[in-house]
């Protein structure tokens, strides 16, 4: 049975799209047929992060409006056999997302995929509501910072009240916390909230902690999800998060600052 996952946060700029790209890539790497859908109508970015921006012909909204078939809009990833991207429209706005239209596309995707990952826009308005409405799982992307935590809390409330599962009285949407841009050194200095603080406030299970890493920005700019970067710790953290999502018991890494050798420090300082 296909599962719908929403990548959401309430707040903007915390790493939803980056995480959507990385997580869907991670699921595909594990052999699952995965489709990642961009719900940020009018602010299309997922195609860039996935590196398929030059191959967009039709989009999600075209499919909703019946102007194109789903197969025409889906873009097959060049690196991974099992990974597909459904880009959104850059010229329309969130009102183009009708509940009936989104439902029809979701049903069609469910017939063909194992996982459908919905990349939510920021906010708690139509775009975000449509992205989370059909979800079975919600990955709440949070930065270790008070405003992000509060907005995540708000979106969790919305999930509990306005998702399809909530409205129909089904089992609630399964919530997962993904803490991104975690800088263990700054946490140690007390400049950032630590994992425990965030988890205590949000009280949902921790899926993963993604360390702040230059590899993430680089990955975005070259359009290659960071999950594919074997050398970066962020890539490793996303792969671990995917493993935990699939039920594996994996220890959380990167919670402590890396120990630097003397040579390392000298080199870093002179660099």
């Amino acid at each position, binding site marked *: 049975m296909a599962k719908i996952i929403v990548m959401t946060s309430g707040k903007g700029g915390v790493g939803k799209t980056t995480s959507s790209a990385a997580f869907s890539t991670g699921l595909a790497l594990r052999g699952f047929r995965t489709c990642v859908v961009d719900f940020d109508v009018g602010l299309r970015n997922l195609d860039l992060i996935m590196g398929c921006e030059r191959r967009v012909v039709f989009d999600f909204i075209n499919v909703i409006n019946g102007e194109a078939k789903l197969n025409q809009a889906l873009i097959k990833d060049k690196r991974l056999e099992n990974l597909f991207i459904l880009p959104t429209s850059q010229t329309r706005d969130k009102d183009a997302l009708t509940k009936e239209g989104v439902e029809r596309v979701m049903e069609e995707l469910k017939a063909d995929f194992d996982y459908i990952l919905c990349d939510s826009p920021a906010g708690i308005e139509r775009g975000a509501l449509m992205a989370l409405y059909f979800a079975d799982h919600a990955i709440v992307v949070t930065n270790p910072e008070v405003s992000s935590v509060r*907005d995540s*809390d*708000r979106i969790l*409330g*919305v999930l*509990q*009240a306005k998702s399809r599962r909530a409205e129909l009285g089904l089992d609630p949407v399964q919530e997962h916390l993904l803490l991104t841009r975690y800088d263990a050194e700054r946490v140690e200095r007390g400049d950032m909230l630590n994992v425990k603080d965030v988890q205590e*406030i949000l*009280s949902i299970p921790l899926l993963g902690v993604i360390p702040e890493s230059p590899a993430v920005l680089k990955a975005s700019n070259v359009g290659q999800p960071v999950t594919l970067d074997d050398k970066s710790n962020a890539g490793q953290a996303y792969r671990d998060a995917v493993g935990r999502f699939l039920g594996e018991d994996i220890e959380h890494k990167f919670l402590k600052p890396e120990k630097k050798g003397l040579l390392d420090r000298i080199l870093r300082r002179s660099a």
Partner: protein
Amino acid sequence: MTGAAQPRALPFQLRGNTYTMMVLKLIDPGHPEFDDMLRTKIMQAPNFFRYAPIVIDLEEIADTEFDFNGLRARLYDLALVPVGVQGGAPEMQMVALRAGLTVIPAARTPQPMNVARAKPEAAPAAAEPTPAAAPVPAPEPEPRGATLIVTEPVRSGRQIYAPRGDLIVMAPVSQGAELVADGNIHVYSTLRGRALAGVAGDTQARIFVQSLDAELVSVAGFYRISEDIEPALRRKPVQVWLDGNVIRMDPLG
């Protein structure tokens, strides 16, 4: 608003409420030092009396010709706000009515008082609970509603209201969430949002919290904001109650 917020279609709410007010009983309003003596009395607790609603008791006044409006003006000068009169001759009561004050049936007995209703236009500070506007510790008996029990975390932006009853929450209450009850509020977890107990005026309502980190706590309209909560009580089990017109917060256990 999401969740259990009670929809309120009307742009206003009309309901009864009870207040205690100071009664100024006039014995000899013509006394040459009347104002000075009253001012001395007030200066003992200036904050308590500032803009306090005052009921003028005319019972002892036999002289129906006395300068009522002059007295009113003098009370305003002392930052007292006359809202009504009780007792006295009908002529004097008419003068008071014409001056915009209400006539309150005098309550002579010390038993359950027939308490005055504050007139909003006469109480400029009525929006905020003034120190003197302490609600009476005997609200009108209303049928009690069922206790509302919440077991899920109460997320930011959510408001939960327990009409006429108690509200029990067994999960964390986030910043930006609001618990409202006509009765008591219990939180068997961390309270980081707001909790308002006795919102219909029940001054006996209390708030019990396992770990207090609230933005605001309120009983019967009296409130204390986060900044004014003693650091020693933070993240501790605490009960919040109303002592006269002061919010008290005591450690539990």
